[in-house]
């Protein structure tokens, strides 16, 4: 039996051929090393994300998330739900909080769920993968598996918004969370605790609808990483990753910059440090190639 077991909520962007498919690749490999067993919630659905608000309304949005709770309870009773996506985690946690605080919302939700033949008896705990790593495993356990430290690589820890606000990780501040920097140090790389854009918004969905506004933010986020001598940026959020990575070309055109910095997931750094291959770490999923990590991943492992 695995040391830790969870009901897994991968989210739309992690699916095959979707924008964060390489995140899932690296998470699966990371969990194998750490003996964490993730069982996908059967037939899970989209969380609605924050941007669905124009049409979502209050109850439909919570019912959508509650369907996943009901499926999890039915198929994976007693297991906590773990999400890798910041928006999935936030959406599900918000629903959990609202339903817990309002009997009316709870009974209305149950009534709507009946239409899909589902019900909720117990409210599940909703965890983000980084919470599992930090709280259930801990830094010592994570560090034990490092066989190929990322020595000499300087990495800016970009936490972004939704993994940090409004819920965040317990014990961390909203203005200057430290856990990502600690994870960077844990894999043997050099962190930049003074990176002042670590909780700046990437523009979220406005990167699609009003790109000029989002790109102004992305410029600040990337520029500051360069100013601090970073070789790459690391983040726990799929939308932060995509927005900060794929629009660097547009930012360059608009602002005359020469940005070309890889944007990674924490799980990719861990897989490489744990001795995994470039493929295990999903490095082939980078639009801006992480050459330095590819080199390290090709090196033999110190056992």
């Amino acid at each position, binding site marked *: 039996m695995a040391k830790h077991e969870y009901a897994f909520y991968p989210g739309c962007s992690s699916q095959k051929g979707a924008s964060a498919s390489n995140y899932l690749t690296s998470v699966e490999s990371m969990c194998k090393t750490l003996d964490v067993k993730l069982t996908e919630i059967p037939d899970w659905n989209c969380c609605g994300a924050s*941007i669905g608000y124009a049409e979502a309304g209050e109850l439909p949005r919570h019912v959508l998330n509650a369907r996943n709770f009901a499926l999890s309870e039915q198929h994976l009773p007693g297991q906590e739900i773990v999400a890798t996506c910041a928006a999935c985690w936030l959406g599900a946690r918000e629903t959990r909080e609202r339903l817990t605080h309002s009997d009316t919302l709870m009974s209305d939700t149950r009534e709507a769920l009946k239409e899909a033949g589902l019900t909720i008896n117990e409210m599940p705990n909703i965890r983000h993968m980084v919470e599992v790593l930090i709280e259930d495993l801990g830094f010592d356990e994570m560090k034990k598996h490092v066989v190929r430290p990322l020595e000499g690589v300087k990495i800016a820890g970009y936490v972004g918004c939704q993994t940090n*606000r409004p819920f965040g990780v317990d014990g961390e501040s909203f203005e200057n969370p430290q856990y990502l920097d600690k994870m960077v140090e844990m894999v043997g790389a050099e962190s930049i605790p003074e990176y002042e854009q670590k909780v700046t918004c990437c523009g979220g969905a406005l990167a699609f609808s009003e790109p000029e506004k989002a790109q102004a933010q992305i410029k600040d986020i990337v520029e500051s990483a360069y100013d601090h001598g970073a070789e790459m940026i690391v983040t726990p959020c799929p939308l932060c990753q995509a927005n900060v990575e794929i629009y660097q070309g547009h930012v360059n055109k608009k602002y005359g910059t020469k940005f070309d910095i890889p944007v990674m997931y924490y799980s990719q750094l861990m897989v490489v440090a744990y001795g995994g291959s470039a493929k295990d770490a999903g490095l082939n999923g980078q639009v801006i190639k992480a050459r330095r990590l590819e080199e390290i991943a090709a090196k033999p492992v110190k056992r």
Partner: protein
Amino acid sequence: MSANTAVAEKYRNNFLKEIEEQVEMGDWVKMCMQCGVCSGSCPTNFQSAWEHPPQELFMMILAGKREEVLTSSSMWNCTSCYNCIVRCPRKLPITHIMHGIAEYAHRLGMAPKMQPTRFFSGLFWKNCTHTGRVNELKLSLGLYFKDGFVQGVKNGMAMQAVAIGLLKARRLNPFELFGGHKCKDQTGIQAMLKKAYEIERSRKTAKMAG
């Protein structure tokens, strides 16, 4: 009588009450003490300035400026970064109030028609609830072609390098156009959402009558 005229008539001279009863988290609005921390913490207000930042919208609601608030493009500038929520000294759930006012203006048909984030927001919800999961390709194409075919091709061309990068990285699947990821129990999802809308509508109507 349109939905808008009906509510406007019912809540005549009491826009605050209308917001409190009809908008998600609207009952928090009167708690605002006009400190402006939300405006100073907002990334899109900081970069390009909202027409009316959150604390101004709150005061306008108290002042009964119904038309100006509901037709404003301001709320649609929210990126859902939640910075205003965590910094508000009075703990107002500002992000949710902004979404709530925007949703209400959209529901009444008063929100600015051409506002791009309003369009994208509706598109996203329809996209993800259609099959239960987001179809990223259809979502992007839906946005690029919102102003017609010619503009759509132009937008597509502007995004060409980004799309090719994603294709090469296998993070964009052209076959999503002909199906893509979906939930098995789509019938159940549609039925449950239909019920949820019905309940929500009847609760709002009851508040108006009561």
